[in-house]
């Protein structure tokens, strides 16, 4: 069982330059733990304490996890996870 995780340019130093990696877990929190085992250091760039960093957005199947349960958002095989830095629009 594996979930695709898209990694933004700025975090690819942790994934040997890979733009997409796979990870496992039943929740986003577990998934990030698993990511960090294979790509040490990435967790500290995503989280601050028990929460996502202010300028990090994570989407599961295109939906922002801050509105679906945060780090407790459940994930399963075949889901698509996208990590992006917050940028300006307008």
């Amino acid at each position, binding site marked *: 069982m594996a979930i695709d995780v898209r990694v*933004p*340019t*700025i975090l690819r130093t942790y994934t040997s330059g890979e*733009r997409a990696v796979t990870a496992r877990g039943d929740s986003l929190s577990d998934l990030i733990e698993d990511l960090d085992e294979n790509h040490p250091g990435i967790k500290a*760039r995503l989280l601050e304490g028990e929460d996502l*960093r*202010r*300028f*990090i*957005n994570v*989407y599961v199947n*295109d*939906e*922002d996890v*801050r*509105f*679906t349960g945060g780090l407790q958002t459940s994930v399963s095989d075949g889901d698509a996870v*996208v990590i*992006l*830095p*917050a*940028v*300006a*629009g*307008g």
Partner: protein
Amino acid sequence: MRFDSLLDTVGGTPLVGLPRLSPSPDVRLWAKLEDQNPTGSIKDRAALAMLVAAEKDGLLRPGCTILEPTSGNTGISLAMVAQLRGYRLVCVLPENTSIERKQLLAMWGAEVVSSPAAGGSNEAVRLAKALAEEHPDWVLLYQYGNPANAAAHFDGTGPEVLADLPSVTHFVAGLGTSGTLMGAGRFFREQAPQVRIVAAEPRYGELVYGLRNLDEGFVPELYDASLIDARFSVGPRDAVRRVRELLELEGIFAGISTGAILHAALAQAAKSVKARERADIVFVVCDGGWKYLSTGAYEGSIDAAERGLEGQLWA
């Protein structure tokens, strides 16, 4: 309908039903046609409101120079209002925006300072803030943090939707400065709290997210997550697909970001159908498609259209 001047026509836009895109008589989609504002975008509301507020606060006096970072629409709206009211406008515009936006800015008399493509609007904001320090007499309206931006939708967009469709269940709009969602969202929280507020955020190509470090990320000062119930990220492929559907099925020729908003509205419609609940889903048509013809979004294959938008600020 008769108006004293063009500025008096801002807002009061039509809300039209979409019989062919609506999945059932119980789950209906409605389009708020903001392209029918004077410069053809929803930003006329915010531009007028910010300018009037600055005049009231005594920040703007005749002959003043206004400065604004913008990926296009806000600048075009400000250029129109500034020209009518006698101000000079300097816009900081990212390089990777459509040629039509630059042409329209020039048409309404705005001066353009280009900011680098990499980093998108973040860079435009940074450059505008630097210019504001160099020119302390210039007035930075700053749409990302100006309460008048959200107030335009608290006073206008939100009440108009509720008056035209008291049975509204969902309000779906684009997330850029967050002005539309914050203003209408706050209005609905106060006046019709059962209405769910849904944000559709454009997902650009990688170039746009090319920050040097994560501390350079940007969340608009206006943004308050408690006024939103769901937030979707929509890429160019889905946006183009939907904007073409809107044209083919309902005859509405909208800008690409409206395709992203429609995509989120249709996702909500599908959820409502599945849950067997009644829904009246209103989504915002932010602008017409005219400014994006040169991007190739409306012709040829979806693959080609998607490639054409790579690295562009299409919303």
